[in-house]
């Protein structure tokens, strides 16, 4: 699977021949630096989040999650994610398909534009939407007259989240689809398949893992997005607060209980991150197993 070979981050497969040629000292130094970095910047903060979250005990932990404003934030985050991620999955597929399978003018521009949300600060992205749709914005009067609320409401947050997460799926799929080329699709056509069947039986399966991987990353980011959403949401408790906004607000409250509660809510995001990693590893393991099984049946029959 090309999706796996392009991501040689697994310890067992990425063993370099050169590693054995380095002196033991350098080898251990490099390993320690890498592990130390990961420990200090990733593992410790993660552990700390959970440590702080359970600081007032398990009962308090669940209580703070059950608080109405927090529940509302969780719900809103889920709604936004459930809309933004499928939209971007669809857009990512379409864009990757167009880029990989066709030649057209403006292709380079499209690829650059897809990356734009990574280059622009999320806060700036949020501000752009405010400038367009805000009360003082270009379309403000018209929207007001038609009683359409975008800024400080769900549509604005959706727009912001979708914008920020545009690149994830497309960026995963474009190189994969380009590597796959159009040969298999053409073969399907000669075998009598129509466009839809070709997509469903050939294109989609051969880019499945890239797609899933992109969706997971997109999902994690959509749930965790703070900057752009905070600009357009107004952070009205119980109405336009997402999980990250809720964490931020609780964290900056005066009471220490709220501080602990903020970590409790934050632990949800941390859990999401862990879950993302687990799913990703599972997916990689699954493909490898599929091939291993096929390999075994081969040696049986041989």
């Amino acid at each position: 699977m090309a999706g796996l070979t392009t991501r040689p981050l697994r310890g067992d497969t990425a063993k370099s021949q050169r590693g054995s040629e380095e002196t033991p000292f350098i080898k251990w130094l490099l390993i320690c630096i890498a592990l130390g970095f990961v420990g200090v910047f990733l593992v410790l903060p993660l552990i700390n989040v959970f440590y702080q979250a359970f600081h007032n005990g398990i009962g308090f932990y669940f209580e703070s999650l059950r608080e109405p404003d927090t529940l509302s934030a969780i719900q809103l985050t889920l709604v936004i994610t459930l809309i933004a991620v499928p939209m971007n999955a669809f857009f990512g597929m379409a864009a990757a398909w167009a880029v990989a399978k066709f030649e057209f003018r403006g292709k380079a521009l499209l690829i650059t534009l897809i990356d734009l949300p990574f280059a622009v600060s999320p806060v700036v992205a949020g501000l752009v939407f405010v400038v367009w749709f805000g009360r003082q914005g270009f379309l403000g009067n018209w929207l007001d007259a038609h009683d359409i609320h975008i800024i400080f409401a769900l549509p604005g947050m959706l727009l912001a989240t979708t914008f920020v997460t545009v690149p994830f799926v497309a960026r995963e799929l474009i190189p994969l689809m380009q590597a796959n080329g159009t040969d298999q699709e053409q073969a399907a056509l000669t075998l009598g398949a129509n466009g839809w069947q070709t997509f469903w039986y050939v294109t989609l399966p051969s880019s499945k893992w890239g797609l899933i991987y992109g969706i997971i990353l997109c999902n994690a980011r959509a749930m965790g997005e703070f900057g752009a959403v905070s600009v357009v949401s107004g952070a009205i408790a119980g109405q336009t607060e997402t999980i990250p906004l809720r964490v931020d607000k609780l964290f900056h409250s005066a009471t220490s209980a709220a501080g602990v509660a903020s970590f409790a809510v934050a632990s949800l995001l941390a859990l999401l991150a862990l879950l993302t990693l687990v799913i990703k590893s599972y997916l990689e393991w699954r493909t490898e197993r599929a091939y291993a099984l096929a390999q075994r049946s081969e040696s049986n029959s041989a």
Partner: protein
Amino acid sequence: MSIELRNVAKQFGAVIAVRGVSFSIGHGELVALLGPSGGGKTTVLRMIAGLEMPSSGDIFIQNQRVNDVSVRHRNIGFVFQSYALFKTMTVFKNIAFGLKIKKWAKSDIDFRVAELMNLLELNGLEKRYPHQLSGGQRQRVAIARALASKPSVLLLDEPFGAVDAKIRQELREWLVRLHHDLNVTTLFVTHDQEEAMEVADRIVIIAKGTLEQIGTPREVYEQPSNEYVARFIGVMNVLEANVTSGIARVGEMEFPTSSALDGPARIGFRPYDVQVSTDLACYRYRAVIKHTFFLGIMLRLELEMNSGLVIRTRMTKEEYSQLGLDDGKEVSLQIRKYRVLASQSGPLSSEVAYTYQMPPTIAEGI
């Protein structure tokens, strides 16, 4: 007619890939589309399949004009140069794909796939993925997949290009046997003239987008329509000679010509028309064997004459060992037949038979 092209041309932007090509292939024929790389062979094949639209001209399959028929309704089997196997599917699913699309009953699919796996000797590989197959196996899967739904025409693009020389020979025999068994009209692309000669009933020669000749291997070989074909098919020796008073000279070689004009001329002769002997007195010219190339049962020899002129010849392995030849050995030679060549694409002049009588030697008659 199974396949017919009438004045078909194809242009990619400024590049003219195919220029007004017409030919037809009868039912059950095995035909090679032969030509140098970049000559437009793949483009012709893709137009027949419907993967490419001709810029002009008409294409017929089973006497039906198919210009406006989409790929999926042309009922062709296409074997891609890269095989293009579905890499997420097992061998079984690859072969069954077209049948599933055409909504065959499951039992019929199982039967048909088993039949093809048998025919192409793929038994036991049904659960493998393409990346777990050898080059030759992949190619046979690609052929099985293309044949599965019983196409009226089988098209193969450089079917033996991607496998090594040893398997290639085996696969050629495969194709011939398969064609014999199934009798499906087959058109395959190759840039290898020996392959075309060995496998095909007829050969269509295409170069620079133009049809140069079409005929049986024998016709193409014995009556090449022009020098280009002659060189391409027979690896013709072409020497740049100079004519003075009716004799074309190049190096120490002399070729009597009927032309009264003095000046440059080109002399062409086939490798088979070079006669070689280890008896240095047997023929007029002397040469040293520079190189022997082994091409299956045939050998190709490069002979270097005293003047540095290099001449190519061919013979069977038996002849070679009978004569006791080897690299570095000195031989005598003569050219049995040759042609005086006009322009590259012009028609060929007739061959001149030429035998040189050795002057009697003292030893003769003893």
